[in-house]
């Protein structure tokens, strides 16, 4: 059989720079599985692209309708929460296709009516807010300014953080949105600087407004200490700012262990940046769809949707990135597996990643991990 999976990602539009590495992840998984020849008696897997544009729900839906017509058996995506919800409600549910999003993190997706078809390999932002609050408190910082990218991700994260932080006795001097892709962030930085605080929490995207805000804050001397959540933590951040982040820190979902490192290395060999945000999650999403198919012995979404939770969680043999062939073999043999993958997948509740976060610092212009939460 020739199995097609859709990669519904924003190849054009506001987050177009993240999409290629995410696609790379999904394709890597597909290639690994195809090459192994172990899936459902030697089926091959092909990834078809569907441009979700990240922001235009209608275009995302139309594009997805099209690939559904091509007979896809599962969807890796969508990318941004808004467009993901639209695709889920308008395409995936009506057509009964499984959808695993690597990056849609809005808490709203936890409660959505999904007929058991929707999963995600990233945790809900509700959790990260709490983790971030703990980290900041533990460093003895009592007041912060907060800026977030103005979408459901940024807003949700900012709100959950503010609630957690204030409950723990901290002060948020200002909670201001910034829009991505704007020409200039002077006004935002001026406002943040005027409000003051011991640190600035930048709940944004590293190659979007988040970096712009950080840059301008450093240049004008508005803040010296920054707190970065997942949208910001990446090699690009270190490249951009180097030693200027000596006192800054942050956290992002990333499990302990060699899974992630393996993945990054493999990705580099395959010619893309595996440490780019949500690239690993995309790999895991694709891998999980394929493993679930194997577990169900069928590529029919109605059959394999119930297997996703099984292969993702304990009990079973741990499967790391690069070991998909082994996983398929085990499943074919009827052995239970526990897919760990590049992001230490552990699905909880309605099928979303439980979320292990690593705490990082940037001494001497290098990213270094100081602990896990």
């Amino acid at each position: 059989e020739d199995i097609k999976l859709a990669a519904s990602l924003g190849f054009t539009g506001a987050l177009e720079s993240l999409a290629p590495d995410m696609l790379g992840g999904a394709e890597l998984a597909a290639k690994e599985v195809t090459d192994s020849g172990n899936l459902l008696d030697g089926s091959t897997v092909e990834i078809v692209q569907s441009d979700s544009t990240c922001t235009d729900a209608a275009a995302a839906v139309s594009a997805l309708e099209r690939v559904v017509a091509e007979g896809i058996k599962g969807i890796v995506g969508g990318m941004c929460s808004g467009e993901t919800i639209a695709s889920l409600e308008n395409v995936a549910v009506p057509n009964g296709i499984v959808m695993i999003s690597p990056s849609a993190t809005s808490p709203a997706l936890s409660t959505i009516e999904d007929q058991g078809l929707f999963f995600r390999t990233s945790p809900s932002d509700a959790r990260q807010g709490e983790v971030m609050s703990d980290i900041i408190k533990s460093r003895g910082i009592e007041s912060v300014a907060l800026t977030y990218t103005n979408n459901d991700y940024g807003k949700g994260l900012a709100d959950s953080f503010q609630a957690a932080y204030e409950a723990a006795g901290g002060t948020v001097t200002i909670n201001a949105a910034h829009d991505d892709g704007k020409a200039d962030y002077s006004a935002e930085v001026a406002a943040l600087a005027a409000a003051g605080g011991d640190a600035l929490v930048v709940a944004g995207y590293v190659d979007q407004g988040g970096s712009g805000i950080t840059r301008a804050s450093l240049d004008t001397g508005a803040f010296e200490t920054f707190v970065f959540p997942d949208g910001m933590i990446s090699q690009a951040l270190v490249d951009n700012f180097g030693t200027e982040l000596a006192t800054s820190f942050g956290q992002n979902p990333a499990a302990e262990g060699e899974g992630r490192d393996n993945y990054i290395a493999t990705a580099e060999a395959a010619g893309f940046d595996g440490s780019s945000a949500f690239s690993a999650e995309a790999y895991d999403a694709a891998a999980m769809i394929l493993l679930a198919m194997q577990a169900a012995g069928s590529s029919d979404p109605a059959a394999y949707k119930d297997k996703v939770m099984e292969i993702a969680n304990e009990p079973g043999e741990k499967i790391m990135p690069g070991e998909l062939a082994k996983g398929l073999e085990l499943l074919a043999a009827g052995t239970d597996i526990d897919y760990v993958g590049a992001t230490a997948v552990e699905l909880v509740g309605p099928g979303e990643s439980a979320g292990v976060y690593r705490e990082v610092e940037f001494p001497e212009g290098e990213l270094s991990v100081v602990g896990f939460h």
Partner: protein
Amino acid sequence: MDILNALVAFLNFVFIPAATYGAQLALGALGVTLIYGILRFSNFAHGDTMAFGTAITIIVTWGLQSLGISLGPLPTALLALPVGIAGTAAVVLLTDRTVYRFYRAQRAAPIILVMASVGVMFLMNGFTRLLIGVDEQRFADGARFVINVRDFREWSGLTEGLALKTTQALTLVVVVVVVWALFWFLNRTKSGKAMRAYSDNEDLALLSGVDPERVVRLTWIIAAALMTIAGVLYGLDKSFKAFNYFQILLPIFAAAIVGGLGNPLGAIAGGFVVAFSEVAITYPWLKIAGYLFPDWQPDGLLQLLSTEYKFAVSFVILIIVLLFKPTGLFSGKSV
């Protein structure tokens, strides 16, 4: 002392950033206005052509850097700029030749030209991405600061710091030079006068022996230079990202309209009006008030509106400006 602190805070967070941004917008608006005045349509491809010119400049800059050539404290991109301008001019002339000239000869309604420019916008958009990709690119090198916050604090003994980046200083200087050169060109040289004459009355310019196609070519070349310079300065100061150059189109048009379309002086003023209204209106005055009235302890941030509305507010300002100056800031004289 406190008054000085207040002043420095204002300069650092409002004045210098807004002036830089305003200068970048002004250059963009100048190009828009020039094309509007002479070719008679609003060029929607402006932002994406800026991106294209910048992309060429960046690639050349990389080449120079890899050869070890640099400009000392100034960004190497300045050396690459002429190449960028030449490349952009070539591309723009090619589009004129293949797209706009047809409609000019047909005397098509100008809205058609506007829509054709939307088509060109899509093309440029795609080509830029093919050329340099979608990622963010930083290409500023050389010294980062003329004055930085820490040095300023030490030197002045104030609590507030003041920073002036090389790129900011560069932007302001370049804008002054470019604007002066443009005005000198338009008002003093024969070719400049031919351009103004053509803009004023096409047929009569023809009857005076002006070659209209030469004027058109000249306009595109100057516009290409303005676009590339604006794009590179903007990219140096912020960073290069193809998508942002589409986003900057809106404020550029706003600036050009407020200034009175077709009017170069207006374009410059418009750029600064837009920039300052964006930054100043949403500024929380708490800190400055704190310096000026140390005893007053307001509970809010003294922010008129939150920054989410900065763009919206700047439009309201623009409408108010227009209500008091119904023909734009500088009407009458045009390109």
